[in-house]
């Protein structure tokens, strides 16, 4: 209990410190705040352009896919805010700077990840919510209390899947020295979570459900909201996928930090 309180206090202090550091380049902070949410624009725009040519994609309408898209953006937020520092891991490990995280009486992952608390990633929330609201309005989805509660559980689980994917990919740095390409590979593959899983062939769908659980990031959870009658059990495996994959990613991380022997500098 005391340790939770200690970490909460530390988190508050570290967050204030980080904000101060970020605000030292004020112009960039403001520009990033505006532009950061643009990352979603290209893939969103390509879906809209595609639908100018086709009535539906594998039986899914534009409104439904916009909903999946909004869900995807919200599921990405916790990873963006709390795990942004995974992108630095490849360089830190290669240069040997990572050694400093061994020398504090703190949980290593906590210490490492709190170095960047990326508030800019929060701007996906209004965009994601707006997309979901527009789609629910068009599709006439009634937001009952039960549905909201279920969505929140699914969203939390989906976020865990995203965090796990990025954490595990970054942690391969401890073995590979340079995991940057694997990280960008993961973030590129992640993009495909926005499409109906039904467009992929059987083997591919199995991979995206069990091996790299992309389907649980947006499509399966959204299915429960959009088409509960044909969703089956898969949406409710999202919490299982989330917890299992995150636990596995943590295991990879801790195995890696124990195995890494530094660069000698």
């Amino acid at each position, binding site marked *: 209990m005391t340790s939770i309180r200690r970490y909460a206090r530390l988190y508050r202090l570290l967050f204030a410190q980080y904000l101060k550091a970020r605000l030292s*380049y004020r*112009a*960039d902070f403001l*520009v*990033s*705040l*505006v*532009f*950061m949410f*643009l*990352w979603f*624009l*290209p*893939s969103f*725009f*390509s879906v809209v*352009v*595609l639908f*100018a*040519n*086709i*009535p*539906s*994609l*594998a*039986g899914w309408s534009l409104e439904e896919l916009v909903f999946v898209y909004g869900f995807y953006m919200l599921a990405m937020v916790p990873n963006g805010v709390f795990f942004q520092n995974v992108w630095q891991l490849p360089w830190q490990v290669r240069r040997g700077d990572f050694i400093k995280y061994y020398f504090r009486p703190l949980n290593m992952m906590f210490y490492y990840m709190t170095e960047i608390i990326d508030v800019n990633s929060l701007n996906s929330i209004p965009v994601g919510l707006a997309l979901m609201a527009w789609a629910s309005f068009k599709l006439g989805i009634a937001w009952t209390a039960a549905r909201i509660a279920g969505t929140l559980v699914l969203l939390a689980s989906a976020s865990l899947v995203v965090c796990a994917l990025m954490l595990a990919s970054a942690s391969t740095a401890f073995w*590979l*020295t*340079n995991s*940057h*390409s*694997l990280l*960008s*590979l993961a973030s*590129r*593959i992640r993009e*495909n979570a926005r*499409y*109906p899983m039904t*467009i*992929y*062939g059987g083997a*591919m769908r199995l991979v995206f459900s069990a091996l790299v659980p992309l389907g649980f990031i947006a499509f399966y959870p959204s299915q429960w909201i959009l088409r509960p009658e044909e969703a089956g059990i898969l949406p409710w495996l999202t919490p299982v996928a989330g917890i299992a994959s995150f636990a596995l990613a943590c295991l990879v991380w801790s195995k890696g930090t124990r195995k890494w022997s530094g660069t000698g500098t």
Partner: protein
Amino acid sequence: MRLRSYRAIVRNEIQASLAYRGHFLFHLAGTAIYLVIASFLWKAVFASSGAEAIGGVGFERAYLYVGIAMSLAGLIQTNVDYSLNRLVMSGDIFRHLCRPQDFMGQLFAESIGDGIVNCAAIGMPALVLSYALSGTSPPDLVNVLLFVPAVAMAFFLNFLIDFLTGLAVFPFHSIRGVTNAKDAAILVLSGALVPLPFYPAGIRSVLEWLPFQALYNAPARILADGGAGISEALPFLARQAAWAIILFVLARVLFAAGLRKLVVNGG
């Protein structure tokens, strides 16, 4: 003598980027996975449309455009925006400025070194794979010969766009925001994700005059469309050249202006 000193930079950069070879394997694996996923997506698109061709383009050609664009993305990436950001923020830029070579020339020589390695290790294999997955026959020799200068031009243009983006470091002291905006603009406006023939006619006619389509759309169309040969390729190449001149002048002027603002504390 001057050119030889740039050649030394290119050679150095090639050796540096070959130091971590494992990276190419992952990049290539990533590209292969992307290409397989894209084939599922585009098959679904054409199955959903119920037509053989959309906007006059069938599955094979649409898929080829996307595949070629993907291969080019690995080849023309320069990351010069990040280099410029790092050089200015760390102050290391003074070392480049003290050398007898031109500053932009030095960065371009470094990019060429990377480009040569990326071309052999990522671009070419990805291109072959795209053709294999699309199920079309290999391109005509004429198209290949016209494709090469188009790619060279796309590389130069991408370097200029990245360099211009990197200049944001002078007013903002960091380029994160602007780089994100640039990446988004390129993906949306270049036809890298969805080929331009799929865009509504009104938007398309505007996009065809912007520099972004010169990065992906122009080389992809020259290689994949076939048949038309030189008469179709020339307008694309001419527009690439015009943009190269405009952006080059712009980059020189803005860099000179930024440099006047630069303050580097002793190192």
